[in-house]
């Protein structure tokens, strides 16, 4: 294996691990927040209205994540522009 292939392998490995860690954190937060919101009193099964709530909650939480991410990145850019650091 030449040094260029080693480099590409390392980059691929780091990206995979970083994406997995990000997905894991997102799943944890969705579970905690949507369970809390949609299932205040856990019964003997997930009712159909709870199921609807959970599906909508997941989509809404991911939309919230995307919006927070954009707002955060925009602000970081702006602060870096203003005085070279957050």
């Amino acid at each position, binding site marked *: 294996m030449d040094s260029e292939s080693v480099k590409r392998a390392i980059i691929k490995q780091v990206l995979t691990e970083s994406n997995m860690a990000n997905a894991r954190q997102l799943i944890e937060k969705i579970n905690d927040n949507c369970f809390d919101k949609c299932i205040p009193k*856990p019964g003997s099964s997930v009712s159909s209205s709870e199921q609807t709530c959970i599906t909508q909650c997941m989509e809404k939480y991911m939309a919230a994540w995307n919006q927070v991410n954009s707002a955060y990145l925009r602000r970081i850019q702006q602060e870096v522009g203003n005085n070279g650091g957050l």
Partner: protein
Amino acid sequence: AELRSFITNEQQRTRIQSQTHNLTDMCWKKCVTGPIKSGTLDKGDSTCLANCVERFLDVNIATMKHLSNMRQ
């Protein structure tokens, strides 16, 4: 090899215990809401705790299915 399988089992046991701590904390807050009147779980607490674990894992599985469908 024997030692390796021991370590693997131990790591799994540690993950399960740690997840049990989180689940107990969360389900305790959801189910044991009134003042403490005895050192044992009454029928209502006990049913709620069992349902809380089951329903949380239902949500967990649903989230992972939803995300893996989205990716395809």
